[in-house]
């Protein structure tokens, strides 16, 4: 395999006179450098860059890698708390766990894969899962779950929207199920605003020995250190279709679009992870220092240069040693290709051959996937230079400092006035039908049809799965009592109306869902999905969102560490979710991880036993602003979210945790979309049909108009508690200055009966279930 002749320089010194022209020419070849970045790079190197250097810096300085538009704003988020071991900045965040798992650490990562999922839903979503799993795996963790937060268009709009829905679900299922990582739920919203900009946010969680967390850097010490690349043979993924390869390098003469997208392979990832687990075991047992990093954007170039830079070293990479597909591919492409299912190790040279043999011979990756394996690529140096050669020819040669040199792109921000609360006009919709309409809507309908695509049970750790409780609960270490809870939130309608308040609600709801199961909110991750940073209003929304996230997180950390914020430990920003038709609504998506000291105290949402009391604790029912009722039943525009008192919210969550830890309550369910009526319907539907449970509730105690008592979405939790324990719950609410209303009882009659404002409403279980289960199957069966 001989290399094609590569052009030495990406531009000539003369061309620098017109950096805009250079930028446009580069963009046409798949290299994204803004005009001022062309000048900056020239200055940094003191010469025009070689092609591979231009590609490398194009990626390093991309919005995705450099956060150049947002980094200064992200500083607003609280990231420190006693439980944080590694905060934002690495591939994943790491937090300590309490006894009986104080020897373990929880690893959390959160990313978006929005645009690829819009273009190719199956592969885009699958690659998203594959990438986030690597972010957790490269910390030396076992990946124990994935979650996904999906924002789809309105399925009624176009077959393409439905293709995206089906494809994304197929991609997530196909990857996670085969990889053997349980799906721990997430959330799904359908809204026309996402018709041509699907959001696919993926989160992964892992468990590592607390003293065995791996860092993505060349370790301290003399080494000498070797780079070992493992996994799929490198191909032209991410570059095959780009003019970069065909026009400039003459490498792609077949004319097809091979390699233009990243192709996920969960099978190879699974066998790679089995081999990685053995590698982790050996380096820990023998005390071998090591660095580990996943390969994502920028491929070998970014991974090896960042490993070197993070360890304050240089590197010499001999690219011809890389294992790759048996086709002629330009070395610049090999260096930067985004081929999936690869990791890079940096280990002592004395261990490198054994490590490579582990993948090549013991686990025989090449017999499982053509060309897969491990190769020793080069070594770390002390001269501070990052150098890549191809059969002796230099592809990259620059100071490591240039690589770590950040980028900042100042943007203009313009804050807007939040929308006003909804003004009630004449109400007068049939409340019986209104509940059925809400349950039958895409937003509020049962998610069971969707969850059935996912394996939530593999690994045998799952305790409360999607649909069982407000958060998913797993047992990270079998045989130990500790449980972990995870929940996701982010309401685009609320964020569109008031980005700051919407963001507060996102944090509060994620943490409240975790607290409903009895888990203490422990750490947060986020992904900020927005339009173009070049749009001042988008940046204004972004600022407001960060303010909202920060304020809420500062208020809700007390259950993990008194007086401390709930820390953001990992996150991601996805910009340019925008086209001529406008930007998506501001879409912060927040995951909260929580800790249960005793998993056996975990609380589900389903009604448990006839005769038990139902108690609502939380904000009083005062209006319908921001509610699904206004949007879905009244079909009126977005309006301000309901108010949120963060101090009361912290006390409400503290009550939920105390009630679960004390084993007073039998069920707990967050009042969110659809208000108390939908919450009660879901508690009824969550119970086994064979138990024949129903609910009798009298909402008159809420002293609100009928529709408000039914459908107000102000924060609250409905608890189920035995009559003997109920006084304890009321007392605990009083101690926390919280309002609590006895609203009804669990009944034995298979019916939801609600009394309010002199009316008696009743729905049979069959009627409620029929409505709730009606929406999603239509999307898969094209029955629209």
């Amino acid at each position, binding site marked *: 395999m001989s290399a094609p002749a590569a052009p030495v320089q990406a531009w000539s010194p003369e061309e620098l006179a017109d950096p805009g022209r250079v930028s446009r020419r580069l963009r046409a070849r798949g290299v994204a450098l803004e005009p001022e970045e062309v000048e900056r790079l020239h200055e940094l190197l003191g010469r025009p860059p070689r092609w591979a250097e231009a590609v490398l810096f194009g990626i390093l300085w991309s919005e995705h890698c450099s956060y150049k538009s947002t980094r200064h704003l992200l500083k607003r988020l609280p990231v420190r708390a006693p439980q944080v071991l590694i905060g934002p900045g690495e591939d994943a965040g790491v937090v300590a766990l309490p006894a009986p798992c104080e020897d373990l650490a929880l690893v959390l990562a959160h990313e978006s894969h929005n645009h690829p999922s819009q273009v190719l839903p199956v592969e885009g979503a699958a690659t998203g899962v594959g990438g986030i799993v690597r972010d957790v795996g490269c910390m030396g963790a076992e990946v124990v779950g994935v979650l996904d937060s999906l924002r789809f268009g309105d399925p009624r709009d176009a077959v393409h929207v439905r293709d995206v829905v089906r494809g994304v679900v197929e991609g997530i299922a196909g990857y996670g199920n085969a990889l053997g990582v349980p799906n721990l739920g997430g959330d799904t919203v359908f809204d026309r605003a996402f018709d041509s900009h699907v959001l696919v946010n993926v989160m992964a969680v892992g468990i590592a020995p607390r003293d065995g967390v791996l860092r993505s850097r060349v370790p301290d010490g003399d080494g000498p250190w070797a780079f070992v690349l493992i996994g799929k043979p490198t191909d032209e993924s991410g570059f095959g279709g780009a003019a970069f390869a065909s026009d400039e390098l003459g490498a792609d003469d077949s004319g097809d679009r091979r390699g233009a997208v990243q192709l996920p392979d969960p*099978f190879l990832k699974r066998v790679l992870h089995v081999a990685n687990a053995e590698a982790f075991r050996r380096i820990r047992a023998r005390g071998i220092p090591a660095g580990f990093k996943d390969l994502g954007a920028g491929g070998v170039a970014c991974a090896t240069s960042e490993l070197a830079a993070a360890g304050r070293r240089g590197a010499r990479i001999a690219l011809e040693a890389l294992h790759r597909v048996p086709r002629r591919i330009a070395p610049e492409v090999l260096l930067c290709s985004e081929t999936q299912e690869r990791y890079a190790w940096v280990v002592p040279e004395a261990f490198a051959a054994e490590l490579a043999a582990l993948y090549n011979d013991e686990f025989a990756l090449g017999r499982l996937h053509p060309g897969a394996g491990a190769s020793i690529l080069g070594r770390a140096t002390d001269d501070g230079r990052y150098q890549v050669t191809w059969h002796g020819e230099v592809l990259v040669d620059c100071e490591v400092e240039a690589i770590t040199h950040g980028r900042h792109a100042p943007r203009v921000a313009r804050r807007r006035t939040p929308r006003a609360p909804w003004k009630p006009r004449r109400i007068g919709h049939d409340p019986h039908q209104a509940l059925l309409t809400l349950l039958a809507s895409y937003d509020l309908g049962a998610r069971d049809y969707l969850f059935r695509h996912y394996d939530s049970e593999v690994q045998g750790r799952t305790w409360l799965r999607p649909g069982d409780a407000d958060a998913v609960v797993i047992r990270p270490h079998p045989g130990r009592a500790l449980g972990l809870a995870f929940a996701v939130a982010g309401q685009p309608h609320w964020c569109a109306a008031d980005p700051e308040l919407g963001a507060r609600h996102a944090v509060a709801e994620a943490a409240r869902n975790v607290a409903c199961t009895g888990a203490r909110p422990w750490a947060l991750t986020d992904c900020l999905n927005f339009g173009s940073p070049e749009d001042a209003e988008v940046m204004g929304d972004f600022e407001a969102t960060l303010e909202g996230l920060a304020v809420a997180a500062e208020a809700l950390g007390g259950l993990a560490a008194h007086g401390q914020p709930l820390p953001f430990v990992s996150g991601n920003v996805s910009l340019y979710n925008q086209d001529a038709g406008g930007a998506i609504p501001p879409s912060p998506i927040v995951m909260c991880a929580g800790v249960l000291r005793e998993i*056996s105290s975990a609380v589900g949402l389903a009604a448990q036993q006839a005769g038990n009391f139902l108690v609502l604790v939380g904000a009083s029912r005062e209006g319908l602003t921001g509610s699904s009722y206004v949007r879905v039943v009244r079909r009126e525009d977005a309006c301000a979210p309901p108010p949120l008192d963060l101090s009361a919210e912290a006390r409400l969550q503290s009550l939920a945790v105390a009630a679960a830890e004390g084993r007073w309550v039998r069920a707990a369910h967050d009042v969110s979309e659809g208000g108390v009526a939908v919450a009660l319907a879901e508690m009824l539907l969550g119970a086994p049909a*064979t138990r024949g449970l129903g609910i009798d509730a009298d909402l008159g105690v809420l002293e609100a108009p009928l529709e408000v008592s039914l459908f107000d979405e102000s924060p609250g939790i409905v608890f189920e508690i035995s009559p003997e324990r109920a006084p304890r719950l009321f007392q605990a609410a009083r101690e926390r200055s919280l309002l609590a209303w006895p609203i009804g009882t669990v009944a034995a009659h298979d019916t939801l009966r609600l009394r309010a404002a002199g009316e008696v409403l009743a729905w049979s279980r069959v009627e409620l279930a029929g409505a709730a289960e009606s929406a999603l199957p239509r999307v898969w069966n094209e029955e629209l």
Partner: protein
Amino acid sequence: MSPRIAVLQFPGVNGEDEAARAIQRVGLEAGIVRWNAPPASLAAYDGYLLPGGFSWQDRVRAGALAAKSPLMDVLATEAERGKPVLGLCNGAQVLVEAGLVPGAGEVQLALAANRMPERTGYHARWIEVRVERSNCLFTRHLEPGTVVPMPVAHGEGRFTGRTAGTVERLLADGCVPLRYAGPDGGPAEQFPDNPNGSEAAAAGVCNAAGNVLAMMPHPERAQDLGQMARALGGPWSDARDAWQAAGGTNEPGGPGLVVFEGLARHLGVGVTA
């Protein structure tokens, strides 16, 4: 020393760890044996488990390539000598494709693509199986009619044969120890209680000697009582609720362990779940 069970790790399987845990939980030892281990090393084990997952990426057909593994020749010989063999999900597909179930080396069945209303492909949910009269060593300690909840998760789980009535005949011969159960505890007539359209509602099929069992559900993912799906009722759920309400101490085993207890009893080990 406790009897040792080999858990076969074909490339792409992903249920080996929880399977090994379930084995250990009933007082047996578990050793994970990789696909490229020397086949002869298998003979030293006292029993075998083929875990769930996607062996060889379902290339050609689920279970088809693993069924041809040299390890399976050794397994077939040891099975003929009467050693216990349990295939779970993909492991069941391997046993059927290898001709170990219902037996004698000849392939007599298929685990075909699920048949479900309004959906195709992979499907995951908790279901209930009922124990049928058979001499299967994994279930014969249970009263026929006993109902056991556990999850299923697969795309190809429908037991079927070339000629109509193949699975019914196996049932009559006592080779279908587990069937999907409906709400009344009887054999499940329809989806979703029968989650894949399996003939005769068969969830597990064994050989005539009763020492090799291929089952599609996952008992190893139901080994904690507390992890049962909340949407299921019945005596196991009642026991879970009572245990939690009583303070959650002295954790009892989950429903799926009964299959492993059958294995432990057969190997003469007192159950210590």
